[in-house]
């Protein structure tokens, strides 16, 4: 695999991954927001408690979304890519050619 191939596939994986993550996080937090607003509409005096719970749950889901963001960034920067063949890397280059 050439250098540009690694970079290209890294960008592809990161882009598709980030899009899917935003889908999931948006759905989850939207559901929580909807139920919270409905709950406050039914019982306005519980507004403070519901608001606090909503923010905590939204922050937890957002935390998971940020996990996936970190993984996308790792894919983008090719952190686990093997070293590219260079004049001083004869054994690494040989191993790479053998794949």
């Amino acid at each position: 695999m050439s250098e540009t191939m690694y970079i290209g596939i890294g960008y592809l994986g990161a882009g598709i991954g980030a899009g899917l993550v935003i889908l999931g996080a948006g759905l989850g937090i939207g559901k929580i927001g909807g139920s919270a607003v409905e709950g406050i509409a039914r019982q306005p005096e519980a507004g403070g408690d519901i608001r606090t719970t909503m923010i905590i749950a939204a922050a937890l889901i957002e935390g998971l979304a940020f996990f996936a963001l970190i993984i996308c960034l790792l894919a983008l920067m090719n952190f686990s890519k093997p070293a590219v063949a260079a004049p001083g890397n004869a054994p690494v280059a040989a191993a790479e050619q053998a794949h």
Partner: protein
Amino acid sequence: MLDHVYARVQLAGLSLPISKHLVMMWIVGAGLIIILPWIFRSRLPGMNLARTAVETLVLFVRDGMLAPTLGEHGKKYTPYFCTLFFFILFMNLLGLVPYGATATGNIAVTAALSLCTFLLINLSGVAEHGVVGYLKSFVPHGVPGWMAPFLFPIEVIGLLAKTFALCVRLFANMIGGHIVLLSLTTMIFIFSDINFYAGVFGAIPVEVPMALFISLLEVFVAALQAYIFTFLTAIFTGAALHPH
């Protein structure tokens, strides 16, 4: 966003770097140690406003976060939780001023904070129930005997995962905001490379207000993430102290 190393200190065979994030942590630490007691004990009339503000936050930590989760005798943990809350809050906010850096945008800093939480959870559980009692509290009551060996590793992994999640949540929230800000500002340069006038008249009117809006969102996220970190630490410590 990157950690610039200013100097190196040779200590016991290690070459310790003095970097921008470390200097920011020192500034926040000095601020908390020097400025907050001065606010409390000063007799100047102008300090009343600052004292009320700090007192509101401390009471919010004690009554809003510790009383529901740790119970009434959990209020003796207030100093640690207040330290945690103010430290994270000011470190997050210091990244938004010019020439400042977000120290919590360094995964080493958030890993150290979540390790402190891990120690707090385990040590408070051991202090409350004893070592054997704390290990027994991992498996809830009323569970059939044959299921206990399966539940125990799952609970331990859950504890490690919760600590790891605390670390990554704070780090990614802080560094994500700065990465978005960086990308928006770099768009101006990208557009200017294509065509100078497209860059000046096309990109700047869009990107600069967008960067301003993202910065305002960053202020909210800074306060929210400090609150979430402290509140989750309180919840986990409460779960270790009173395992129902």
